[in-house]
């Protein structure tokens, strides 16, 4: 029996490296088919407020991430800091957002790198020379949760994703009942002023914010359907503001830059004077702005933050 136990133990030890190297093919959001570890142990994410926070939330084996520099000279994980208190005391800084440092990334010895189509596709060949590299694209026209579910598969945390998703769906049902009961659910528009171009950015989806609104049963303004299906947002002439007849208008702001609901509304004054009288949502004081870094990532923590905010604001 002892011999059998020893033999089994020895076989398990021999098998471990083989298991560690087990790979499987996945097709990433840039269309590349990549052989990735079945259970990645050293994940480096190169986009903080999408792949990093998602991998962290799912308890994937995240060892490093790209970060940003704040005004005080400290490196931080955008949205990771706000939603999870995640910082570079817990994981390694892989690069500073903007220009990747291949040597720093290589020194972390990752077994999976998650890039972002918008920011890191230029570096794909170099990254692939370090470790299997998959590109995530939060703006590929699919729903945010579909993309998140796919990322969960890449980092081998599908089970955890489904657990969190089940909890989230239950909470959405509760909040819907609490806010609207059996009555009708209002409509919304997700927009943003662009004072530089004098245009209005209209969002087909805006991460956790619009995901939660849609899941609660909010209908969206018709103008949002005019954003091409493969885009997250599109810029329109400020004249379209007259078409926004939704019950609510949802915005986001960056608190660190001194932005608030009032400053965002003042920006609308610049590009569309008179909108406060024209738009039903403005007339009825139903412009709502949320902290952008809390509500852009489509993580469950972000979606719960939106639900909390809505409970506070709408009740």
């Amino acid at each position, binding site marked *: 029996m002892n011999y059998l136990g020893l033999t089994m133990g020895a076989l398990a030890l021999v098998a471990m490296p083989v298991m560690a190297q087990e790979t499987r093919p996945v097709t990433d959001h840039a*269309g590349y088919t990549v052989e990735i570890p079945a259970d990645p142990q050293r994940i480096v994410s190169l986009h903080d407020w999408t792949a990093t926070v998602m991998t962290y939330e799912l308890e994937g084996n995240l060892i490093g991430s790209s970060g940003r*520099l704040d005004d005080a000279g400290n*490196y931080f994980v955008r949205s990771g800091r706000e939603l999870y208190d995640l910082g570079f005391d817990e994981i390694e*800084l892989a*690069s*500073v957002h*903007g*220009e*990747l*440092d*291949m*040597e*720093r990334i*290589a*020194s972390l*010895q990752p077994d999976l790198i998650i890039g972002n*189509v*918008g*920011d890191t*596709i*230029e*570096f*794909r*060949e*170099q990254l692939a*020379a*370090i470790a299997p590299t998959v590109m995530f694209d939060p*703006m590929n026209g699919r729903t945010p949760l579909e993309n998140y579910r796919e990322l969960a598969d890449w980092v081998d945390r599908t089970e955890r994703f489904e657990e969190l998703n089940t909890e989230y769906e239950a909470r959405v049902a509760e909040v819907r009942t609490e806010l609207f009961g059996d009555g009708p659910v209002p409509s919304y528009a997700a927009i943003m002023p662009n004072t530089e*171009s004098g245009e209005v950015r209209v969002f087909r989806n805006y991460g956790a914010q619009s995901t939660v609104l849609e899941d609660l049963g909010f209908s969206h303004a018709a103008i949002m359907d005019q954003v091409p299906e*493969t*885009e*997250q*947002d*599109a*810029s329109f002439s400020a004249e379209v503001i007259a078409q926004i007849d939704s019950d609510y208008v949802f915005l986001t702001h960056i608190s660190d830059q001194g932005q608030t609901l009032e400053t965002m509304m003042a920006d609308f004054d610049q590009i569309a004077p008179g909108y406060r009288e024209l738009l039903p949502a403005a007339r009825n004081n139903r412009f709502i702005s949320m902290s952008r870094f809390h509500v852009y990532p489509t993580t469950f923590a972000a979606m719960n933050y939106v639900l909390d905010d809505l409970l506070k604001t709408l009740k």
Partner: protein
Amino acid sequence: MNGVVVLRLGRHVSLPMSRRFLLVAPLLVAALLVSMFAALNLGSMQTSLADALAALFLPQDTLGDSARTVALFRMPRIAVAVLAGAMLAASGYLLQVVSRNGLADPGILGLSSGATVVVMGASFLYPAMPIENLGLLALAGSLGTALLVLGLGRNLLSGGGIILVGLSINIVLGALIEVILVSGSAMQFSRLVTWSRGTLSTVDGADLRLVLQWFVVLVPALILSSRMLAPLLLGEESARALGVRATAIYAFYVLLAAAFAAPVVAACGPVAFVGLMSSYIARRVVGDRPTEVVVTAMLSGGLILLWADTLGRTLFAPIIISAGVMVSVVGVLTFILAARLGQRFSSRED
């Protein structure tokens, strides 16, 4: 021929060279070699001398992690910095001779803008276009712009007229870039942001091969034809009086200048000032003999871009400053230093 030494190789080859060039060129070569070796040992990953030597001399599949990093990332970057700097210098000097204007630079003919318009336009129309194609598109954009400038300014090749045509095209292309930018969302162009700043951080083995292939073809063409540059320095009329077919030679050099700049724009994006500064430095240091000036300018250009990139990736690590930004800082400092050195040389000779 005061201060000139004639190097003779057998009975048929004699190379007259100024004493100053014979002093400066080996010094620049030595400085370049030392700088390349220093750059090979500098980076965010701690590497040893043994890693650098292993990366240089051993096959890649036998290398450890540190040496492999040096071989994969630092070596192509250093080699491209030196080659690209030299090519921009050659391009800048040729344009300065053609235009008889010491401020000419590859950017001034619109080559960088041409590449940017084509790359951005293609990304706008075909968002799913593979990133690998961008280099070739930049190449086509640069060469296409050179041909356009040459076509429109074929009667204005001398006396700076071609530069005015180049500037005009540059303004039109700049406007086109604006039109493309306001027509799309920021995300459509975010993947071009790094490239458009002029950077070596995206450079890999494929970029090195591209730049090296063009370098190997173009440098002999430049050196072999460089004796035709001297008459052009006298002006078009004087060149004609000496029996030189000035118009054809002007056209040849404009195309050669574009060909030198195009692969650099394709690999690194638009990097300004290297051509202007290195040629100025070279003229101040070695005088006016075209072959000597162009060789000195190429060595200086290689040094400028190499140090701009090396300092950019090490000085403020983990923040990386693109070579395009650093070159303006390092370049201006080098420029001032060289100008002072040149003055000292001149006053000693006097």
